[in-house]
């Protein structure tokens, strides 16, 4: 218990039980209608030294908005029940499925902030069912950086705030390496199974049907870039307005000064100082959070595309090698 209360810096890696992985996959498969709907659940486990061990999880049931459903009540109930059967019942984060990695948004930020606010070491596991069906198990653990936590806590997303807190899209989330750990029994079982199956080398994994995935990625990137551009436009127009106002302000104050000087010469009392903010209402500063998130999202997409492309290249080279290899004997 004491170890779990150490600072979050100590958590260097996440160790996930095979059970948890399977449970998440099962949940997505059964309720996420093949990955198009988002599913969420709670992770349970504990912190051991610098390792966050996730040993169990349970899912949030689906419910319609109009149903009366108390999530907190449900979680408490669930954990109490698990405790009774002697399973780890410490809340260490949550998981969520995603479609093509489009998970960086306000909702995720908000809930992860809440989690980290109450449970320091909590993480969010992002599982991409579509990529998993293609043979890459895509399970990533994220948490908000310290910087981001403070930044979000202040609740001010003006350009100045971003500047002062020195935050950028790269320093919003940090990924924690994930290790999947199985018990020795399972490992032996797997070894045995692999020995049992005496199949020919399978070249299916060299499938080069890449364009569809790439196209999807590109499309998403495009919409993101569009959004970012419009955000930039908003910011630009704000800046222009701001400039204009500043100019007006300075003109006004100059005029006032000149008038006061005249008055002093004539021996009258100078005009009282006015609150400039009253005359020129300060402009609403645009929130830059959206563009931050969008930038993060773009970054994420780009990473995905790069991953995908490098894998594809690998496949290409491999298949080339295989072809050469197969042609040689003939």
């Amino acid at each position, binding site marked *: 218990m004491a170890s779990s209360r150490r600072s979050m810096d100590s958590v260097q890696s996440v160790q996930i039980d095979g059970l948890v992985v399977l449970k998440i996959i099962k949940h997505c498969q059964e309720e996420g209608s093949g990955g198009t709907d988002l599913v969420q659940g709670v992770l349970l486990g504990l912190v051991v030294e610098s390792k966050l061990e996730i040993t169990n999880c349970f899912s949030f049931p689906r419910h319609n908005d109009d149903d009366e459903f108390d999530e907190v009540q449900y979680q408490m109930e669930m954990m109490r029940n698990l405790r009774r059967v002697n399973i780890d019942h410490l809340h260490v984060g949550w998981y969520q499925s995603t479609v093509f990695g489009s998970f960086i948004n306000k909702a995720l930020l908000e809930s992860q902030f809440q989690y980290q606010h109450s449970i320091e070491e909590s993480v969010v596991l992002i599982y991409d069912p579509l990529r998993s069906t293609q043979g890459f198990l895509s399970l990533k653990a994220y948490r908000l950086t310290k910087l981001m936590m403070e930044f979000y806590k202040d609740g001010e997303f003006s350009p100045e705030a971003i500047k002062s807190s020195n935050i950028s899209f790269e320093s919003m989330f940090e990924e924690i390496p994930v290790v999947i750990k199985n018990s020795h029994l399972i490992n032996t079982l797997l070894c045995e199974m692999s020995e049992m199956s005496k199949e020919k080398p399978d070249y299916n994994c060299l499938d080069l049907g890449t*364009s569809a995935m*790439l196209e999807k990625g590109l499309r998403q990137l*495009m919409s993101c*870039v569009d959004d970012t551009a419009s955000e*930039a436009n908003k910011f*630009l127009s704000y800046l222009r307005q701001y400039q204009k106002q500043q100019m007006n302000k300075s003109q006004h104050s100059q005029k006032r000064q000149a008038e006061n000087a005249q008055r002093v010469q004539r021996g009258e009392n100078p005009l009282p100082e006015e609150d400039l903010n009253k005359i020129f209402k300060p402009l609403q500063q645009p929130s830059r959070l959206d563009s931050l998130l969008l930038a993060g999202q773009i970054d994420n997409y780009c990473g995905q595309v790069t991953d995908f492309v490098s894998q594809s290249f690998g496949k290409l080279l491999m298949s080339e090698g295989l072809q050469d290899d197969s042609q040689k004997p003939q």
Partner: protein
Amino acid sequence: MSRFFRSSDTESESSSSEDDIVTKVPVVSRAFQFSDDEEEAKRVVRSAKDKRYDELKNIIKQLKNHKKIKDMSNVLSDFEDLGKAFEKARKVVDKEGIPRFYVRCLVELEDFVNECWEDREGRKQMSKNNSKGLGALRQKLRKYLRDFEKQVQDYRENPMEGDDDDEEEKEEDEAGAGSDSDSDDDVGPTTFLKKAEPKESKTDAAGSDDDDSSISWGSDSTVSSESEEEGEAREYDASMFLKKQPGEASKKDAIKKQPRQDKKKKLRTDRDVDDDEGEWTQVTTGAPMTEKPKMFAKDTEVNHEAVTKKLNEIVSARGKKGTDRSEQISLLQELLSISNTNNLGPATATKIMFNIMAAIFDYNPNIATCMRSDMWDICISSLTQLIDLLIEHKDITASEHILEDNEQIEASPYRVRGCILAVTERTTEEFTKMLQACDAHSTEYVDRLKDEKPISATIVKLQKYMEGRATTEEMCRIYLKRIEYLYYKVRSSDRLSIPLKSESSEEIMEHLCKFIYTKDSSDRLRTRAMLCHIYHHAMHDRWYQARDLMLMSHLQDNIQHSDVPTQILYNRTMVQLGLCAFRQGMIKDAHNALVDIQSGGRAKELLAQGLLLQRQHERTPEQEKIEKRRLLPYHMHINLELLECVYLVSAMLIEIPYMAAHEMDARRRMISKNFHHVLRMSERQTLTGPPESMREHVVAASKAMKTGDWRACKTFIVNEKMNAKVWDLFHQADVVRDMIASKIQEESLRTYLFTYSSVYDSLCLNTLADMFELKKAVVHSIISKMIINEELMASLDEPTQTVAMHRTEPSRLQSLALQLAEKVSQLVDNNERIMEIKQGNLFYQKNQQGGYQQNQQQWGRRNQRQNRQY
């Protein structure tokens, strides 16, 4: 069937006239109609005095009858009428003194009222209306009698004195009396008017009729009809459904309610009174006409002078308030017959005829509504008569420039004032109004349309008559009239086979239009003639002539400066031009011609074929009236569904290949917004069933075409439903259908090549020809054209008859990447602009901008290079 309709027609007319009567001048016009008939029978000249006195006497008689049955409300109304009639007779009375019988009547009435008032039992038993009427009558009478005190006294002193008493000293009092009685009576008439008791009054009227001798019927009925009229107007008043309770309760009620109601209805009463007065003044001024039944005294010599004088006399009544217009027409006609019997020469007849026409046009006081059908018959027949007369007697010069004084109607050469052209033009306008007024799908319309022939014939006749004797300006006008009656008519196909006796419509049009082109000085006539000419060309599939004329005239540039009817004609012409182009297989031209009309979705309004409901701004009634007047008669309409279908099919034939060619282009433009709108609408539907409407057919065809399935496309466009709806409306439907089929084949081939070229390495021409059932030469030419236009990156291999694809089109992924690059560069631009502001302009401009610009240029160059690579 027709009989049934006809009868219903007359019914509707009569009812409409009744409506007019009720709303405007209830009694007068009906009375006039009546007197009209009477006039036919006997015409008696009576002096104004007699007339007035007769009027008074009639009312008095009526009053007496009502008194007998104690119908107080009617007595009251009679009394009011009497007051008014007396007021009208003021002139006579001023001269003659108050007639004895009038005073007697007043005295008797007073007695009667007093008697009734005293009779409390009787009063209790009276109906509410009656008791109210009695109260009002009593008050009024008292007031009224104050002005006649002296006469009444005289009368009471010696009732047996003769009728013709001169009592000049009282005249001045009387002058005030009438107006007083009218203005002070505010309260009285209200109660009466509102509470008129329909049931009883009717029976009363009937009863009185029985009592009366048959001779007095005519005059009597005018008054009784009035009361009936009022009864009718208020027949279903609440009072009718109220239970009539005799006795105390009703009386109390009446007393209680009276003042309140009076107040409420005061306003309306004032108006009623006004109305009544209006009626009555009309009666008196109108009366002289009706009292002048005889044209000439028996012994007067009927000569030119007398007839002219008489004519002027009749005509001078024109336009005056209360002149009976139908009366005038018949008078003029009689005059015409008199002049004919007396052989006064054609000029006199012409002059009178002109006046008859004018009177006919005057008959209808409202310009917006059309004339009655019987009036129309008279109109058209008199017009033909007039023109015949003019043609027959070549020595008559009729012109609007001849002044009345310079007329020469006694000897040849005759000179008559009047413009036959204007009359004809007015008649055609009237004809259009008649057609506008009737339902386009009724037999009535067909009946009306039958008059089109005589009108056209008349115009032709007039044209012949005027050739050589009219000014060029007038000639232009009559030619244009002729053109306007000719341009929209199709030469029927059976006439083609028969050797033409007369010249064809084309030649006529050519001749007429050329005349106008050369001679006309006003721009408007020439524009109209030109548009009609183009229209006519287009109707007859002379596409190139029509197009050239349209282009040469530069009408498209300045049509927006012309008046609305001409713009409508222009729209019609453009539509016809588009349809013509479509028939000729000029799909692009058809689309271009129709796109303006069709794009706003207001084709109906633009072609003046109906009013559209506007959601944004309501039309004012005047605006609506004006727009309604512009509408074309139904037989000139262009079928809107045909128009839309032609437009959509042309749009489909252009747009679908274009869409296939530019699938990846981010900045591709829509050729036809309307077509896209229709497509989107169908996509929005959750379930698309088999096509029903014309639009659905076109949408389904478009979808089939997208995949290059020309057979399905063709069956969607050309099938029985569409034939019945659209294609059969063309006059050479089969030619059009064949044209559409071949166009669909060609465009489907293009679409197919655009869509699937990336799949093929090479394509065999023969296979393509088989697939699209086109000749190989056609396929070859289409593909060659596509290659030349750089739409298809391929080359033809002659020896093997194949098309080899070059595969230079960017793949989907590549084009996506290009788009992304474009967007990113946009974003970069944005960011740079932000930088500019942040950095401050001066510093930035000096040090940075050059570098950035270079960067940008490099970017652009790189993009271009990329583009070129693909």
